[in-house]
């Protein structure tokens, strides 16, 4: 739990840093970036509602006090299966005509009818239809990001992959190759360390590091926060290097123009079938470390076929960051795509 505000955020909260700022980041209680407005927390809400039915008496005449002596409310009420409330007195009395064992249903509810079909939940209350997607908040922020990128004429790419496929190396090489041809900005995502941001800094591009702490993916809100530390002029390419993880980042739209999934030939050609969500939500697939093909059992044609099964619209680049093979096609693509803005 967050020691500063008592919310559910872990102590090692998300940190956004530029190279050179790391000295200030070790004391977690300070660095607890308290921009909690946009983060999920629940301490704004009422805490006092334990299951002891402290009704305010206004709408329901619940008459609970006496019944509650036998009320063992220590069980977890929040569970998904049918729960039988208590063994205790059975029946509800004649008032409600329902057929469950439930001690405290001794109430008068003028307008209510237990006649509807329920296996005993408390649906005598008001029903609020919500139908809201759990990820709606991130989607909204992602669309705002998208608008910002369009206005700034920025080609924003979300680079996703397993850890170790070569994302950072690809960026280093790309930055050096495109120097003078187009501006490149980078947002780096890792659980810990400034290592990747420092490498990008050395390669010569403006960069901000997001450290997610225990987090397994970047989200749209982290991207906005990182963008505020980057001084972005109009036109150029924004490379967002996501946390190395082929599962979780697939659910989180960052507002990118294109999502680039990177696999290396050491990872097995059935990767796309094992992690279909990531491939389905990507636009470009880079197959890296082609220089190692003679030493591994990776069938490039098969890998592409599997990937196309999951997403027939994927565009492929086969390259080796190490030897430079195939890099020119990738770089030309970047320049061309950038021009579309």
């Amino acid at each position, binding site marked *: 739990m967050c020691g500063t505000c008592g919310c*559910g955020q872990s102590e090692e909260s998300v940190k956004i840093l530029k190279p050179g700022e790391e000295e200030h980041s070790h004391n977690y209680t300070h660095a607890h970036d308290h921009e909690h407005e946009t983060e*999920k927390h*629940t*301490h704004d*809400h*009422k*805490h006092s*509602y*334990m*299951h002891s039915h402290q*009704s*305010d008496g206004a*709408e*329901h005449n619940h008459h609970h006090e006496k019944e509650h002596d036998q009320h063992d*409310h220590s069980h*977890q*009420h*929040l*569970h*998904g299966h049918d*729960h039988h409330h208590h063994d205790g007195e059975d029946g509800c009395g004649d008032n409600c005509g329902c057929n469950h064992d439930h001690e405290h249903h001794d109430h008068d509810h003028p307008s209510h009818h237990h006649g509807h079909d329920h296996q005993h*939940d*408390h*649906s*005598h*209350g*008001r*029903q*609020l*239809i*919500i*139908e*809201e*997607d*759990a*990820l*709606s*908040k*991130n989607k909204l922020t992602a669309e705002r990001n998208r608008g910002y990128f369009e206005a700034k004429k920025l080609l924003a790419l979300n680079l996703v992959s397993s850890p170790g496929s070569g994302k950072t190396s690809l960026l280093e090489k790309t930055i050096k190759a495109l120097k003078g041809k187009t501006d490149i900005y980078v947002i780096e995502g890792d659980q810990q360390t400034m290592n990747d941001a420092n490498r990008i800094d050395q390669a010569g591009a403006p960069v901000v590091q997001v450290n997610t702490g225990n*987090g*397994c*993916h970047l989200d749209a809100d982290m991207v906005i926060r990182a963008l505020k530390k980057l001084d972005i002029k109009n036109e150029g390419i924004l490379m967002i290097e996501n946390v190395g993880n082929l*599962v*979780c980042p*697939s*659910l989180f739209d960052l507002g990118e123009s294109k999502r680039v999934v990177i696999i290396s030939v050491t990872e097995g050609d059935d990767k796309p*079938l094992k992690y*279909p*969500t990531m491939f*389905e939500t990507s636009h470009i697939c880079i197959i890296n470390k082609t220089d190692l093909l003679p030493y591994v059992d990776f069938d490039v044609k098969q890998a592409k076929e*599997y990937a196309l*099964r*999951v*997403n*027939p619209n994927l565009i492929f680049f086969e390259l080796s960051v190490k030897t430079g093979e195939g890099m020119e096609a990738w770089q030309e693509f970047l320049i061309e795509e950038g021009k579309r803005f």
Partner: protein
Amino acid sequence: MHEFSIAVSMVDIALEYADNSSATRVNNIELEIGELSGVVIDAMTFAMEAATKGTLLENARLNIVQVQARASCRSCSNEFKIENMFDACPKCGAYNPSIISGKELRVKSLNID
């Protein structure tokens, strides 16, 4: 792994609606989780228990409705049940069906007092 952050997000949505309706108690919360959403129901239940602690939802009954994964073939319009996104159409064998249902990750409703 992200069940907890999704649970937190669901709880936030539910609490916002509950607050706007001046709820004094939440009796029941219903979630819709698709078979292809990537979320494991047991993990979600556990995550919800943790995410609702200390909130108005703490003792609410949790209902998780699992939504079946169904797809429509882009080649022959056949509708069928799917288990994976890369299943082929059982009628004509084409891949990459259009997914009709199964990816839901929604707070469906609340029952409040």
